[in-house]
């Protein structure tokens, strides 16, 4: 079903992103090094470093970040946000960069599209599966005595609303 783009939604998204960008406070960063040393990903991947990312932002190099795969490798553990002495949250900054990257049409990991599509189709990120027990037998919700899965009552209205929002977010 073709969802039309609501200009007001685009405007709201723009406003939200603008405010989020202005709240980044990248200039307050003293480059102390707490965030990369708390970060589980930075310990394993040299390419991911929240401190360097914030430095790039305060130097105005946002576009470069939007194009890089780096911003998609945060595991959302929130240690950086919890421990930054200046109350900067590289995690929240990363979320904004991701939203901006999607909007600008830059590449990002496939999994996100699958997730979004499933939610638009069924209300949930995945459909209930049959799973295997340790003894290699199959079980599903019914055989385990669990009630049927939930989904939005009016799927049409739900998909239209959510689809519209996602579309509005992709139009610059």
């Amino acid at each position: 079903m073709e969802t039309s783009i609501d200009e007001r939604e685009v405007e709201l998204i723009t406003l939200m992103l603008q405010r989020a960008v202005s709240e980044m406070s990248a200039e307050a960063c003293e480059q102390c090094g707490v965030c990369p040393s708390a970060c589980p990903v930075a310990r394993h991947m040299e390419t991911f470093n929240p401190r360097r990312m914030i430095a790039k932002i305060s130097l105005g190099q946002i576009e470069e970040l939007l194009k890089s795969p780096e911003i998609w490798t945060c595991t959302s553990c929130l240690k950086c946000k919890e421990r930054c002495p200046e109350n900067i949250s590289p995690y929240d900054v990363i979320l904004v960069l991701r939203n901006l990257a999607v909007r600008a049409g830059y590449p990002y990991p496939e999994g996100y599209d699958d997730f979004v599509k499933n939610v638009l189709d069924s209300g949930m990120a995945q459909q209930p599966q049959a799973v295997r027990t340790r003894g290699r037998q199959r079980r599903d919700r019914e055989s385990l005595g669990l009630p049927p899965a939930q989904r939005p009552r009016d799927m049409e209205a739900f998909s239209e609303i959510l689809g519209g929002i996602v579309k509005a977010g992709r139009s610059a």
Partner: protein
Amino acid sequence: MKYALYLGCTVQAEQYAYEASVRQVLPRLGVELVEMEGASCCGFPAFSSISSLGWHYLSARNLAIAGSLGLDVLPLCNGCHLSFTETQHALEKDPHLRQFVDQKLAQEGLNYSEGVRPIHMIELLHDIIGADRIEEAVERPLEGLKLASHPGCHAIRPSEMQRPDDPEDPTKLDDLARALGATTMDYPEKTDCCGSLLSTASGRTTLSIAGEKLKAVRDHGFDGLFTTCPYCFKMFDGRQRAIGATIGDRSLEVPVFYYTQLLGLAMGVEPEKLGLELNMSPVDGIVKRITGGSN
């Protein structure tokens, strides 16, 4: 104690052991669980990255459903709980967002209400029901079992979003383990991440991160690990083989449980009702120890 039960995608679609054990133990502790008809994904983690507006809409509609039942909501997943909390804050802070959300919810016949409290499983068990009450309900104490608690990132961070436990020294799950008669110990890696949310971007690093934790749990001499988050459980339990292979330690054999499974066992509930056949990690030994080998 009556709550709207919010399963979330992962539990509803595959982490049946958590749901099964929750449905067994909570009513026995006097908690009434009400189904949330019309529930959907909470939007975290995909929508928060792709479309913040979509994310907040999704969380808001679930809060609205709970609100229509006149109940607080009990999400089973750490991420969902944080998502609801963050969305509440966002809606409070931004009147334009709130207006938009109200408008859209109306199209689904829903109404956002501010008073719905997201209750975390740790909060419910430790602060509301209480370790004492749980201890009283124990029929088969988990004596001699040394267990490592894993609260998971979103249960303890960010502290500015009223998490159920302390970000640097979380002790509630430890109290809850002791209430079951098990012993536990603080360990340096307790507050570490399971790495799940990195899997979309980098499978290998995810497994390395999870591997460090499992290895530490084993090296500290724990008999097993337990958690209250389906993402974390899925990683440590479901992907333990792959984790072992990635960190070059194929002998990694750490039994992983949902706390509610252990609680059920301790309360005398039959193992098959707690979904224990679904755990991929080697839990049989511990289950037999607790049940006396009867199952």
